[in-house]
């Protein structure tokens, strides 16, 4: 999270109670269809379902979860865009869906075609290798690559592949970039020796704690919580970042009261100690990270612009 976002989030927290008063008045007119852009049973899917369960228990709302997976969340985006914008259809994606993925897909939609409701949790995206490689930070990887070693760099999205490419190019070398389906596949590949290092968005936490994996660099705009000493990508000439969040969206044109009510309700359960979703998010993603309203819109606009710049930079 950059400083602007942090300050704005703090300001928003102060004013949140006033928005909240109005929001409490809205209740969904019927069951809410909850589209989930992640495979059934996975960490992200479990998060979405637990949030729905908490909301059902606390507010008596009803949810009908449905998997709409694939294409980095774009399948969900295309499916939700023409649904009614009255709060009865929402979907869970990652911020990258409305950012880089949507920009690159050229599917005829922009973030304007959607209502961003709230984020729930962020990623602790690091560049990770097995400890037995003997690397302590990303500079060691560059040294090995320049020494002639063919280095396989695992990624899990087009955006991350671009970042890996830039990390090589800006340092006068080239990686063999292996793009796979998700963070778990990167971890598997690194553990199996199919890849030498890779981007991981929090899944590395246990491995780093036990000393088997090493965070070689932070891929965020801030240091990693677990390894604050790991260098940032900017130290290697790449001024882009892989900041990202899990996020609820709806179709464009959702009334402000509905948007605020949904955002407040979701924020309420994910930030409340002892709720099922809070327990899960704290364990798997290092705690809730909530961006809403104009702050969230601002973040997404910045991501869209960054996607354009990153793509231009990487295709030079």
């Amino acid at each position, binding site marked *: 999270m950059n400083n602007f976002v942090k300050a704005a989030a703090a300001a928003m927290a102060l004013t949140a109670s006033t928005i909240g008063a109005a929001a409490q008045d809205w209740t969904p007119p019927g069951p809410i269809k909850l589209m989930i852009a992640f495979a059934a049973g996975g960490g992200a899917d*479990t998060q979405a379902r*637990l949030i729905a369960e908490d909301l059902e228990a606390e507010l008596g709302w009803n949810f009908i979860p449905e998997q709409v997976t*694939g*294409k980095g969340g774009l399948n969900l985006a295309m499916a939700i865009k023409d649904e009614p914008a009255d709060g009865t259809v929402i979907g869970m994606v990652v911020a990258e869906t409305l950012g880089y993925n949507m920009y690159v897909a050229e599917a005829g939609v922009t973030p304007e075609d959607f209502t961003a409701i709230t984020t729930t949790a962020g990623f602790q995206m690091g560049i990770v290798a097995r400890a037995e490689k003997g690397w302590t930070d990303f500079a060691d990887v560059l040294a090995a690559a320049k020494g002639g070693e063919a280095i396989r760099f695992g990624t899990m999205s087009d955006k991350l592949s671009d970042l890996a490419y830039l990390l090589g190019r800006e340092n006068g070398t080239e990686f063999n970039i*292996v793009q796979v389906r998700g963070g778990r596949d990167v971890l*598997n590949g690194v*553990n199996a*020796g199919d890849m030498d290092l890779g981007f991981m968005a929090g899944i590395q936490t246990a491995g780093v704690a036990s000393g088997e994996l090493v965070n070689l660099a932070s891929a965020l705009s801030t240091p990693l919580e677990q390894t604050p000493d790991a260098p940032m990508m900017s130290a290697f000439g790449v001024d882009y970042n892989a900041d990202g969040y899990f996020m609820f969206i709806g179709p464009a044109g959702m009334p402000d009261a509905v948007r605020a009510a949904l955002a407040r309700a979701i924020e309420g359960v994910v930030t409340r100690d002892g709720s*099922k979703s809070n*327990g899960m998010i704290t364990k798997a993603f290092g705690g809730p990270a909530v961006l809403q309203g104009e702050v969230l819109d601002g973040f997404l606009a910045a991501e869209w612009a960054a996607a354009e710049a990153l793509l231009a930079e990487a295709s030079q």
Partner: protein
Amino acid sequence: MGALDYVLAGVAAVFLGPEMFSLFGLPVSLALAMVVLGFLTGILVGATPGLGGPMAMAISLPILISLFGYSADALLPVMGFLIGVMKGATVGGAVPAILFNTPGTADAFMTTLDGYPMTQRGQARKALKVAHVSSAAGDTFSDIVLIVCAPFLAIMIERFLDLPEKTALLLLSLSFIATVVGGSAGKGLIATGLGLLAAFVGTGEDFYPRLSFGTEALSQGFGPAAVFLGVLIVGELFRGIEDLWREKARSGQVTQYDLSGDQSLGWADLRRLAPHIGRSALIGTAIGALPGIGSSLAATLGYTVAKARHKPGAGDPKMGEGAPEGVAATEAANSAVSGANLIPVLSLGIPGNVAAVFLILAAESIGGFTPGPSVFRFTETAVNPELVIAFGLFTMMMLANLMNWTVGGVFMRSLGFLVRVPRQLLLPVVLLLTLTSIYVETPRFEVILFTLGFGVLGYLMRRVGMSPLPFVIAYILGGRLEETARQAFAATGADPFFLFNRPVALALMVLALLVIVWSVRPKGEAS
């Protein structure tokens, strides 16, 4: 702690964990109760036409997690339930295959080849007994191999197979399935091609949905449930309904299968079946230990090898015409995969089949246990809690095996009566169950249409004598083949010849070609 202490601690974790209730003054731990519950659920799910273990695991995982939460105490009960479901569904899966010719999963397809003819001859209960004994034996053998070899075997295999070798191995599996299974190499290759085509719709790395003709319905692909259940179950139902209709038109009534003659499974039978069970258990275990190949290939290989070795005596049925050996070879092989499949899961965190994926997801969601090389460190001074949990898992697997031998047997024997249900009632019920279960899994109406479409395809394939198995396996492996090949290409620095300039990959490719050449050779000059 020594190795034995770790084993004891693992056993204790299962039996002396949080108590659920007490039976005659003895406390019954939550983990123990969940294994039993999971097993019973699994066997029911497996025995229901149209349902399968992986689907039950997918539905129950979020429910379990919300029931048990994220405490360290939750891990063993949740994993226990999932292991129970996995084992129960494996043994139960033979029931619909044998009784109704409708396998719930691709693994059980080969079971129908001899199991259903046995039912038609009135030997349904005997077929169920054979399936049960073989399945339980294969499973137990595989678990023992897992417990003894897990730590070092998986790491050895992974180091040996790099991405190009994995790609070549998948190609070899496909060419083997295509040419050896159906009896006709040409039809098998066509079915494989169609399966790959189905797998490539709506998938791929590009943001543009491939082969979807720009439609929303196709952009998410067909989904495995629609493909498997459509081709394997709905196709069979269509054929079954047409058969009934013709039979009725010809003779005015419908033949009803019943139980007739000797249903017992004696020592003489077991002695005859033992070599087939043993061989298939070995094949299943070996395939299971390879990451990402899976149980359908094991079942096929087990059956094919048994067919080649089978020498029926005078008056005994041949393989494919109702030989108990066929049921035994298939069930032992596909059940032997489940234990060995956990070798790459526990020591590397890499799943080989769908069931294993859910075990990893459970471990990951709850925390406290990260499948990977760290699990098997026998630390002397500090306790390695993950190793204790690993032995806890092994204990629960052995418990589930015990259930399998006892309760599973009673259950399987008792289901023989189902064969008396009139087929004209049963077939529509199975169709309804299948379509319902698909809709519950993916609530989109297109998926029902896809299922019926694949049902028609499955029906046509059966009518032209084309085995649906190469189609289904090509669909399963298609996505993985594309991914692995793409990754191998990237990892070798965009080397287009990655399959041919490494000795192991080259050897596997040559084998893949030889399998095809050998099976399309003119039959005259072969012998």
